[in-house]
């Protein structure tokens, strides 16, 4: 199937996948960049967003309500998690942080499985986004096209929050030097809590807007978590633009390799990550020396 038509189609697929990965990864990367905590429950939060949205959808039959509930619920989960658990882990070694967030992830997944079972749940796209569009080079589901716009808008909002507001300025300063920000009399703890909430919300939002594409299931977050890590490593740990660039690169690598042989998609993705680690250990847009 190696021809121009297919290449363009696959590149388009890669764009949609890449944008989604960019959104989820940006949540992970701003949490890590600001708080220094590697949140291994991020995949589970993506899944939680899908379930919260699905539940809202079953009651209201409104996709908008599903998106709002999905995102807000995960944001609240993130804030509670930061307040109750993560807070006491800021000064502890990375291994402890990894273990505790990994454990929280397992609790989320199994709690959902316990409550709703293992059968996947379907959230249909809104009526007006049902159907297919002829793009000339291929037919494409209308909703996936819309997803491109939805995610782009979400990333833009994140960008504005991070780069055009006072909060964003503090967050970015916190990424550079949390101790200094604290010394300037800014309540870093409050900012940390907000950052964790925003990062979690990005995952939850992605989880619910992605639900009409692949259906939600308790283990949906597992593979996403791995891909997200690759994206963050490629783009540069802690870098928001890096997450977007890394997401797009990962999406394209997966899709274009799939044109030749889908079996090698992940091989190529990890090869690319290895290459980045060898040539630029701090990632494409990362800064050397940040831990």
């Amino acid at each position, binding site marked *: *199937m190696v021809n121009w038509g*297919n290449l363009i189609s696959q590149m388009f697929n890669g764009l949609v996948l890449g944008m989604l990965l960019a959104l989820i990864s940006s949540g992970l990367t701003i949490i890590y960049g600001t708080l220094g905590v590697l949140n291994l429950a991020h995949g589970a939060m993506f899944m939680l967003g899908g379930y919260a949205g699905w539940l809202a959808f079953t009651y209201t039959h409104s996709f908008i309500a599903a998106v709002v509930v999905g995102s807000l619920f995960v944001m609240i989960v993130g804030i509670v998690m930061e307040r109750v658990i993560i807070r006491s882990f800021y000064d502890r070694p990375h291994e402890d942080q990894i273990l505790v967030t990994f454990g929280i992830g397992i609790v989320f997944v199994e709690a959902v499985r316990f409550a709703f079972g293992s059968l996947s749940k379907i959230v249909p796209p809104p009526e007006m986004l049902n159907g297919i569009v002829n793009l000339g080079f291929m037919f494409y589901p209308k909703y996936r096209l819309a997803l491109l716009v939805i995610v782009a808008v979400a990333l833009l909002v994140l960008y504005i929050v991070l780069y055009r507001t006072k909060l964003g300025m503090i967050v970015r300063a916190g990424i550079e030097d949390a101790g200094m920000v604290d010394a300037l009399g800014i309540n870093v703890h409050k900012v940390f809590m907000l950052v964790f909430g925003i990062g979690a919300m990005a995952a939850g939002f992605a989880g619910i807007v992605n639900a009409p594409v692949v259906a939600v*299931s308790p283990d949906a977050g597992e593979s996403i978590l791995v891909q997200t890590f690759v994206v963050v490593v490629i783009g540069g740990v802690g870098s928001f633009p890096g997450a977007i660039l890394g997401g797009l690169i990962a999406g394209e690598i*997966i899709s274009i390799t799939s044109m030749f042989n889908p079996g090698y*998609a992940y091989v190529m993705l990890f090869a690319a990550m290895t290459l980045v680690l060898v040539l630029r250990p701090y990632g494409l847009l990362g800064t050397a020396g940040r831990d």
Partner: protein
Amino acid sequence: MTFEFDRDGVSRRVLLRAGAGLAGSALVPGMIMPVFAEDKPAMGTWPAGSQGSTVTIGAAVPRTGAYAAQGEDELKGMELAIEHINSGHELIKKIAPKVNNGVLGKKVALVVADSGAKPNNAVQAQQRFINENKIVAMTGSTSSAVAVALNKFAEREKILYLVAISGSNDTTGKDCARYSFRQCFYGETAANAIGPVLLKNFGKDKKAAFMTPDYTYGHTVTKSMSEFLEKNGGWKMVTNQVSPLGTSDFSQYLTNIANSGADFIVNVNWGRDAVLSVQQAKQFGLTPKMKMVIPYQIPFLAKEVGAELTEGVFAATDFWWTLEDKYPLAKLFVQAFSKKYGYMPEWGAENAYMQFAIWARMVTEAGSFYPPDVIKQYEKGETFPSMVGDVHFRPQDHQLVRPVVIVRGKAPKDMKNKEDYWEVLEVVDGAPLMQKPDAFGCKLGPYT
């Protein structure tokens, strides 16, 4: 990320006590070990597993992951069968006449673990059941990768293995085992049964895109299907999209198919992978323009994707509940199952039920739990009734010779009730569908 648990803790304790007593007696110097007939030395869990008032069967089914729904389905079939065996239900007595409120005077119990459809987890769970519960037989699998692993494990541990769902040719082919028996249909019989129906309905020289899950089941079913269609109808495989078990986004694969010029999609994906690929094929506008064929039907597929998407889809299967109009045993099963669980059974439950019923028959006919005795009873190849008519085991590869059912998805408007998804087109006689017993390289191992 799995939860495992045991059912029926009481019988487990009893068994443990029996096992401990036995082990203890062996340790006392001078005390004579229980004497067994010279030709029946202790092996596997025999005789410890069948010395109490209960015998236990260990099930490792997927309760998580892409095949979870089908695993739960199997479990329901097993539970119903055990209930019937222990109560001497009419249906079980038709298949195993000597069952009498249990087998050989013992009640049957089930212990269950989640395999996540992963061979490693399944083997570990069964090892635990052997140690802790002294199981007399094991079952479970909805993935042939698990079935093949348990085949090997059964051979090594000398424990009978009742294959659950497994569609790979290898299960009773190159990876067959003396200690393992398969009830259900598989790649080769599916292809030989549905192939002629496809050629009759659609004619020769078509182009087919295959979707294949990347393990033994997927590869052997795709091979059997593509070879049949090519040899007999001149169909051409224009692309084979191989995806890992547990894929959720099929957009890349479907894009390749969209650009392949295929007329047909032969979708070998299974479980949730099948659900998602069928839905996404529709989202990408591939179906109904391209016709979907499902060589190895998936329990609950139609229920999950909706009848609009399975309308006109041809599939091969083990069992469909409307066969109750044709076979009295099917009627009994459908009645008992739907009464207990509130919906019509699918073939995962039917297969599990039949496997337990057959095991009960073989054990009671052999009059012994001694594994070689039971195996030899299977290998007699006697004919017995099933939910799809008379069947028998083939001694050379331990495959049940049984019909394959060809169905076509009904349009929503033609459905007589909300579970009337498939129309049975043909019940194809099993024997002519099967390869020669050694064609796939089956060599059974030793009895002891």
